[in-house]
Each structure stands twice: as structure tokens, then as C-alpha cells.
């Protein structure tokens, strides 16, 4: 008997649930040959607002977990990606069987990147924290704290590797994120949501949105509850974000979209992307008689 093919409805992963945009709007996504793949949710500023609420709700619990436990969970996420390599690679290259080799390479790099940051979870504090010499009877020390809810703006290229390379250093320290997926190729991010849902990552720690940057960047810029933005933006977007972020004193770590980034380069990973998204707290503790 011939079966009718059952296609998957792309949905975004917010607060541990798979949702469509509150607006009900979608835009069609086509593969390289122009064949229809699915209707991608066209998320609005209200979806962004809801995602920030979900991220804020998940935040305290995620930040309270031990660094060791966060490392374990990131490692588990890497395992989930590895196990779904075929599905994710197909999502990266719909309609192009020949591209699967390159896509598989990207998935491999994603796994390695997650393992890299999983390793950092219980180690970055030793390098970023310090005991400071002071000329008074105080024990003076600096520790890091997560910033809170971080907005991620993924670039157009490397729709999975770049997205995960931006998310991982944010969540490893206890931040929670609201990420806007690649605008021209959002489909893999909707599949990534399914991977996140099956990992041990608590609901709301990573929230993925799809949609148009032009519609969402003004809200990313001004939403006071977002404490930092990290991502790749054009000169024009950067300017809009800087103006909007000034009112809420939001930290920006934006890389120019105009100069290409090699996301496979091991130099894009490491301690500094983690340091970009933590707050430093220095304590003066009295000692002596």
C-alpha cells in the first residue's frame, strides 16, 4: 500500500514547549531546488516578550545548579546532537543530497563545540575569579555571576554551528538565552529545538525564535529584561541596537556581519566568549582583630 508522506510542521522551542507564533503568521521555506519544505513561524515582539518571560523563569534554577551539573547537561546535549547527526544534516541541506557531507562536518563541529564548553563549566571560575591584594585588613576576592537573560542574534551562515557557538558560552555560566535563528535558513533551528527538548537542559534555558530580524531587532534592543546581547549584526543593526540598549544599560557583544567569521576555527571558542557574558562581583571581607 502506498503511504501519503507525513511532513513535519516546523515549530519554535520556547519555555520547553513547541509553539507557533502568537500572531499565527508563518513564512514559506523552500529548499535549494525551490521545493516547499514548511511554514516557518514568523515570530513577533510578543513572542520575544513571552520567550524572555520563560527564560527569566528558568534562570534562577539554572544558575543555582552546580557548575559540574551544568557541564554534565551540556555534555548530554552534545550526545543528543551526535545521535541525531543524520536528521540535523538533512535539515541543513534540504533537497541537496550532495551537501550532506559538508552538513555532517558542521554537525560534528557542533558536537565538539558543546563538549568544549561542557568542559569549561567547572573551570572558567578558577581563571576569571581572583583574590586581590589590597592595602587594608580585608580579604578581597572577585567571583563571577551570570548576567541573566541574554539575547542571541545568529548570523545567516552556519545556521547550526554559529547558533550553538553563541548559545553555549552564554548558558554555561548560568545565563538563559532567547536566540533568533538564521533568517535565510531557520529550518535547522526548529529541528535543534527537538534535540534540546530531549537533552537534560531544563525548559526555558534556551528559547529559539524564527522570524525577520527587521521586525525583532528593535525589541531586542529595548527590552529591559534582556541584560546582554551577543551575536552577529550588520552595521545598521548594530547602530539600532546600540541606541536601544543605551536606555536599559544593556551589554552588547556584536560581531560585524560584513567580515566573514570562520565558525570552524577553534579560535572562536574558549574562555573569552564566556567572560563576555558574566558579571564580576568583588567582596571586601574584614579579617584580623
Amino acid at each position, binding site marked *: 500500500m502506498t503511504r501519503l508522506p507525513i511532513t513535519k510542521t516546523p515549530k519554535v522551542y520556547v519555555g520547553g514547549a513547541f509553539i507557533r507564533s502568537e500572531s499565527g503568521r508563518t513564512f514559506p521555506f523552500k529548499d535549494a531546488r525551490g521545493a516547499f519544505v514548511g511554514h516557518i513561524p514568523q515570530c513577533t515582539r510578543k513572542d520575544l516578550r513571552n520567550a524572555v518571560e520563560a527564560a527569566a523563569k528558568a534562570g534562577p534554577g539554572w544558575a543555582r545548579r552546580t557548575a559540574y551539573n551544568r557541564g554534565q547537561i551540556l555534555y548530554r546535549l552534545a550526545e543528543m546532537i551526535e545521535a541525531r547527526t543524520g536528521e540535523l544534516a538533512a535539515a541543513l541541506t534540504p533537497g541537496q543530497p550532495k551537501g550532506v557531507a559538508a552538513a555532517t562536518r558542521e554537525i560534528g563541529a557542533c558536537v565538539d563545540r558543546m563538549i568544549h564548553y561542557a568542559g569549561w563549566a567547572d573551570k572558567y571560575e578558577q581563571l576569571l575569579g581572583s583574590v586581590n591584594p589590597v592595602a587594608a585588613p580585608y580579604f578581597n576576592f572577585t567571583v563571577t555571576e*551570570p548576567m541573566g*537573560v541574554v539575547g542571541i542574534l545568529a548570523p545567516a551562515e552556519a545556521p547550526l554551528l554559529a547558533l550553538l557557538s553563541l548559545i553555549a558560552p552564554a548558558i554555561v555560566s548560568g545565563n538563559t538565552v532567547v536566540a533568533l535563528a538564521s533568517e535565510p535558513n531557520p529550518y535547522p533551528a526548529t529541528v535543534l529545538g527537538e534535540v534540546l527538548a530531549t537533552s537534560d537542559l531544563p525548559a526555558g534555558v534556551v528559547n529559539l525564535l524564527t522570524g525577520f530580524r527587521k521586525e525583532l531587532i528593535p*525589541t531586542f534592543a*529595548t527590552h*529591559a529584561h534582556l541584560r546582554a546581547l551577543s551575536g552577529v549584526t550588520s552595521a545598521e543593526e548594530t547602530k539600532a541596537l546600540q541606541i536601544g540598549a543605551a536606555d*536599559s544599560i544593556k551589554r552588547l557583544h556584536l560581531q560585524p556581519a560584513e567580515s566573514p567569521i570562520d565558525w570552524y576555527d577553534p579560535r572562536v571558542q574558549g574562555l573569552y566568549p564566556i567572560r563576555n557574558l558574566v*558579571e564580576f562581583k568583588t567582596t571586601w571581607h574584614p579579617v584580623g582583630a
Partner: protein
Amino acid sequence: MLDEMGPVDAVGVEERVAKYGTRSIKKAAKLFGLKLAVSMVDLTTLEGKDTPGKVAALCVKARTPHEIAGGDPAQIPMVAAVCVYPAMVRHARRALGASSSVKIASVATAFPSGQAPLRTRLAEVRAAVADGADEVDMVINRGAFLAGEFGRVQDEIAAVLEACGPAALKVIFETSELETYDNIRLASFLALRLLRPGDFIKTSTGKTSSNATLGNNQVMIEAIRDHYLQTGVAIGMKPAGGIRTAKQALTFLVAVKETLGDAWLTNRRYRFGASSLLNDLLRQLEKERTGAYQAPYAFSEATESY
């Protein structure tokens, strides 16, 4: 009396209230609703750990909910009242001054259970009024109500009403303990027939698992409407407990407007008993003013950075 008031169509009530959330309230209407809701809040603290200092801070917040640097202070109205335990009334009176437009409401009558001798409950009411309470929130005797002693429930309300003197009375039914909509309607009429204009009926104490719902609110405001049409006496309504977001508050106001009409869209006839609702209302008002979504910690004492 049961024949006079008729039964409640439970399915109809649920269907009707489900529609209230679908109204589209934007821009000027939203701003009006948010400000109206602020002016209807009974800012409440009813905890074992309440201190005179905490009550004083609550009174400051009640008078000046949110200060905007360089902004017009009249932009955001004062809340209707602060709601405290009887022992805290005199501290609230000291903080607010002898004549203040923010009223002092006090729960009395062995709140929240009501399980004390009537003598004790009446003494509590008199003490609260003597200390300066403008409004008294009493709980009905649910034990007597559920045992079918409706006459006793009414007698007790009448006794408390007398003990209140000039203070307004709010009669709390604790709807979650009355079990059915029919019981809520019956309790409403028991109270409504005694109350004076300016008094209220109130859903719940906020101390049980289930608090004010749109359904309970609907049954009670329909009772108020029917009573008003029969007698011409307008009684107020106060849902309490579980209303935490501005969105919820606006939905309740839609229910009031569509059931009782504009005459009830005032804090003399409708109140919200809530502690955290005010913060969300202010957050949404600030969002309307600035156009930017606000972080909740800017409006509360929560210290967590999230």
C-alpha cells in the same frame, strides 16, 4: 429565597467568562484600564511576618505607586486602600495620616478561618475600627453555611455590620470552600440583603489553594446586578487572591463592564485584593509610556537579578 434567586447555569457561566479574555484592548483603552485597575487595588499584606516597618513601606507604595523622574506624579493614581491585619491598623494609620484618600482596610473576624466565638470576632472588628480602619473585611461562617444554618450566617453578618459602625464592610465568602456556583449565589444573596450601599462582597481570603476566578466573579456580580434591579441598592465587589497580572485584571474589568456597566468601574464599587498585581500593572503602564518592555525587578523588592 432559593426559589426567588434561581439556580446558576454553570456551563453558561463558564462559556461566558471564557469569552472575556478575547476582547482586544489596546492603546488608550488599555491605558485607561490599567490606571483604573491601579486605583482599584487593595494593596495587601497578610503575613505572619508583617512588621510596622513593612506596613509603613506598603503605605508609601500605596500613595505613590511609581515615581517617574521628572514625570507628572498624577499620571499614576493612588491605590484604593491598604489591607492589613487588625494589629497593623494603627501603624498604617500613623503612616497614612488622619485623613488620607488611601483607605485602610483590615481583615477581622478571626481571618482567614473565622473559627472563633462570635464575641471574639466582634471585639476584633471593634478594635480595628477604633484603631482607624475605614473598611473591615469579614469572613462568613462557612461551617454554619455548609450545615444549612443560613439564618445564623445572616445574623452574624448583621452583628458584624453593627460593630463596624461607619466603616464599610466587605463580606468574604471563601468561594473555594462553598463548592458550587449555586452556593456562591445563595451566599451572595444572604449578604446582599443586609449590606448598605458602599459595602462589598468578596470572593476569598487568598489563603486557600483556589482563589478568585472569573467564574466566581461572574456569579457574584450577576447576584449584585439582580439585587440592584430588585431593590435599587448598589453593592460593590472585590475579587481577591490569584490575580497577579495586568492581563487578568483587565479581563475582570471586562466582566464588570459587560455585566454591571460603567457605574461599577470605580473603586467605590469594585476592588482587587492583591499584593503583586500592582507591580505588574505598573510594569505595563511603564511599557505603554516608554514603548520598551520592562524588567519585573524594577517594580518590586525582589533582589534576584533574573
